[in-house]
């Protein structure tokens, strides 16, 4: 028997005579030219205006614009298979670099001495959603420098200075301001100091690598699977199956504490074990340094590392998704309340490191080199030896639809007595399965353990935590769960006056349309439910937060074209809660 889809595929593939794309090509080129001319013209206008107000910034913008194009071209022209070699060539080079990195000697810091490192960085910041509203064009390039000082105890101070937001067009600038962001960053430089005992896990921009394995295969596995137990690393690109390269890159970018030559050698050896890395041969950085390049293509683009093969020093990182806390630069661009912004409304966005160059080699300096106002944390008493115990159990999102999956589900542990929230000074897992298990190494004591997830609208759904006493040396079992929230609207749909047997022959559906468009079956941006819906049955619709009109329709019999819609739609404003809306219709005949 011929399959219907096979027939349809043959029909779709059947050529319809000669294909002439010239008309469409010409029209698109005209649109591109118009856009290019407009951008050039706008740039001129912006330039003229800026020239009067901030001539020095204008020069910076031109340089950055050129650099942006160069950087992106570099990124996309990187051959996937490796111009100079694929994974095998990359592995060979990386292992050689690992050998050289191991031979490096770590600088020895005397009393009152600090190790100073400096990085130039060019970021692209973007906000895509403010509150429940998608916002286009909120995008800017931000250049800055990040300087860090580390003492002999691995305490770290960081100072980040970022420049004005730079825009590709006035449209971007207007959107940026409208989203509650400022052009000139506040509180410059942004500074912070972290005691070695307070370095990650627990937040901040400093990553403590002293607890990481130096076994290359194990390290490669932990980086690829996001199981390093360092939240900044494990949460990085958590939805991406191929984030090992990115996670390793951030250990090179730092700032880190505890990155000994042995660890850096293990890191390069681990990179050699991660498949898919291409060797790019000799490359030059934005700062003019020469090294060898390695690239990796993930779901979000191609990232590149340029390193000094003789020492394993990082020379440049290109096109990496930035951790949220990177350098604290992005928070400096958010206008303070009461201006509506991502700070007050919530929302989402991201930062991409276009490129990052360490400036020179790390230098040993006196404590006097620390900028005024910054003080290295006073050495704290060595922490008491803590024996960690395993806390494990099942995870479950109750009430989730069949087949529901989510890669943003976490188990969160907070000490008893503090507010239970994902931001507490406790511990969290990497993402866990919707219906699976978790395991954490924790100190003995009383904890509250619970679970939360991010739904597809970026809303955090937090469950009720459970109290648990963890006793040293004894594995504790505690299952956690959170109730699925959604769909946004549910109710009963009724059809009065329908002929007997309608449910077997005809069918019904419930349509939701954004209030911003005309209510109609199949409306733009709408969604509908028509699975197993019959007179008197329940319906449910999963809706994004916002204003919706809900109505129902029926089709009298299979094979009869046209839907019949009766009644007026019901308006509902949705949030993360479930709303109940009953929809009634009167049958009007086929």
């Amino acid at each position: 028997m011929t399959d219907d889809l096979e027939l349809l595929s043959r029909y779709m593939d059947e050529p319809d005579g000669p294909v002439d794309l010239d008309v469409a090509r010409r029209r698109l080129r005209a649109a591109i030219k118009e856009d290019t001319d407009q951008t050039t013209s706008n740039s001129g206008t912006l330039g003229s205006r800026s020239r009067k107000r901030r001539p020095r910034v204008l020069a910076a913008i031109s340089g950055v614009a050129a650099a942006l194009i160069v950087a992106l071209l570099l990124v996309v022209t990187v051959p996937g298979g490796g111009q100079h070699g694929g994974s095998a060539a990359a592995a060979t080079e990386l292992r050689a670099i690992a050998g050289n990195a191991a031979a490096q000697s770590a600088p020895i810091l005397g009393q009152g001495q600090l190790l100073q490192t400096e990085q130039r960085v060019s970021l692209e910041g973007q906000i895509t959603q403010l509150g429940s509203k998608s916002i286009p064009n909120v995008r800017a390039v931000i250049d800055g420098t990040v300087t860090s000082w580390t003492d002999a105890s691995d305490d770290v101070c960081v100072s980040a200075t970022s420049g004005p937001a730079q825009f590709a067009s006035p449209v971007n600038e207007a959107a940026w301001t409208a989203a509650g962001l400022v052009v000139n960053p506040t509180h410059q430089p942004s500074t912070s100091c972290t005691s070695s005992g307070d370095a990650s896990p627990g937040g901040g921009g400093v990553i403590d690598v002293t607890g990481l394995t130096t076994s290359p295969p194990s390290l490669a596995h932990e980086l690829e699977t996001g199981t390093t137990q360092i939240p900044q690393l494990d949460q990085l690109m958590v939805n991406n199956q191929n984030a090992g390269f990115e996670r390793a890159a951030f250990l090179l970018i730092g700032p880190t504490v505890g990155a000994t030559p042995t660890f850096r050698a293990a890191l390069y050896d681990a990179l050699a074990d991660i498949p898919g890395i291409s060797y790019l041969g000799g490359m030059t950085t934005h700062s003019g340094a020469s090294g060898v390049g390695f690239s990796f293509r993930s779901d979000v683009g191609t990232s590149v590392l340029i390193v000094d093969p003789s020492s394993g020093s990082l020379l440049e990182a290109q096109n990496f998704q930035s951790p949220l806390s990177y350098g604290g630069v992005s928070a400096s661009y958010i206008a303070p309340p009461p201006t509506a912004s991502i700070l007050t409304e919530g929302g989402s966005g991201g930062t991409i490191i276009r490129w990052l160059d360490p400036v020179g080699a790390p230098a040993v300096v006196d404590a006097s080199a620390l900028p005024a106002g910054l003080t290295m944390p006073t050495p704290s008493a060595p922490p008491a030896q803590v024996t960690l115990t395993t806390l494990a159990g099942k995870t479950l999102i109750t009430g989730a639809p069949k087949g529901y999956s989510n890669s943003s589900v976490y188990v969160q542990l907070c000490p008893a007595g503090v507010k239970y929230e994902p931001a507490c000074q406790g511990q969290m897992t990497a993402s866990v399965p919707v219906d699976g298990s978790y395991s954490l190494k924790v100190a003995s004591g009383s904890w509250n353990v619970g679970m939360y997830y991010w739904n597809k609208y970026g809303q955090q759904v937090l469950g009720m935590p459970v109290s648990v006493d963890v006793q040293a040396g004894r594995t504790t079992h505690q299952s956690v769960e959170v109730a699925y929230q959604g769909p946004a609207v549910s109710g009963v749909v009724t059809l009065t006056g329908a002929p007997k047997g309608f449910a077997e022959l005809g069918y019904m559906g419930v349509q939701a349309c954004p209030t911003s468009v005309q209510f109609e079956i199949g409306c733009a941006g709408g969604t509908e439910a028509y699975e197993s819906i019959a007179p008197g049955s329940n319906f449910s619709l999963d809706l994004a937060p916002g204003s919706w009109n809900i109505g129902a329709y029926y089709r009298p019999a299979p094979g009869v074209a046209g839907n019949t819609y009766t009644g007026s739609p019901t308006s509902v404003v949705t949030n993360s809660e479930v709303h109940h809306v009953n929809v009634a219709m009167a049958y009007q005949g086929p």
Partner: protein
Amino acid sequence: MADPEDSRTPDADLIRLSFDDPGQFALIFERHAGALHRYLSKRSNHSNVDDLLSDTFIAAFRGRRNYDLTFQDARPWLYGIASNTLRHHRRSEVRRLSHEGEVRPENSCEDLADRVVTGIVERDELDRVRRAMELVDDRFVDVLMLIAGPALTYEEIARALDIPVGTVRSRASRGRAQLRELLGLTGQYEHDGVTTSPSQPKDDLQ
């Protein structure tokens, strides 16, 4: 300059480049225009296809900054725009022709079963498919053609048409049931591992 024929350069990178260098978007056209032309030619009469293709790519170009760069393959996005463009064209066409009294709005009631018996018994198999597809519900046609033409996955179609994946599965199932009925194909077929009879289009396959 990125090579348009280099399939290793993801669409997302080209679109991202086009933010600052609009000319890069021409590479997206060269890469996908042929397939989209074929798709549109199956969804419309030949005299409209050039306009539809132009409108699709111009809309895509103007909306490129809204493209979600986490998706490397731009096809679902482009086919979604093409489907919207088709819908707009059809509404305009129906409005225009209705005013002129030349045509009924589409989806007017018609006994498809009769058409199956009397009208679609033709020699050319593919012509039969064409005629049948003209009678399948419009919402199902979008899904069926995106499965059979560019071979998008359910998830990609959901993204393209901005509808839940469950709805895609359901429309695919119902559309196939209608198509099989119109083509006079009998028997059962498998959909996601579930056997369905075309005489029971009210499915519950999600």
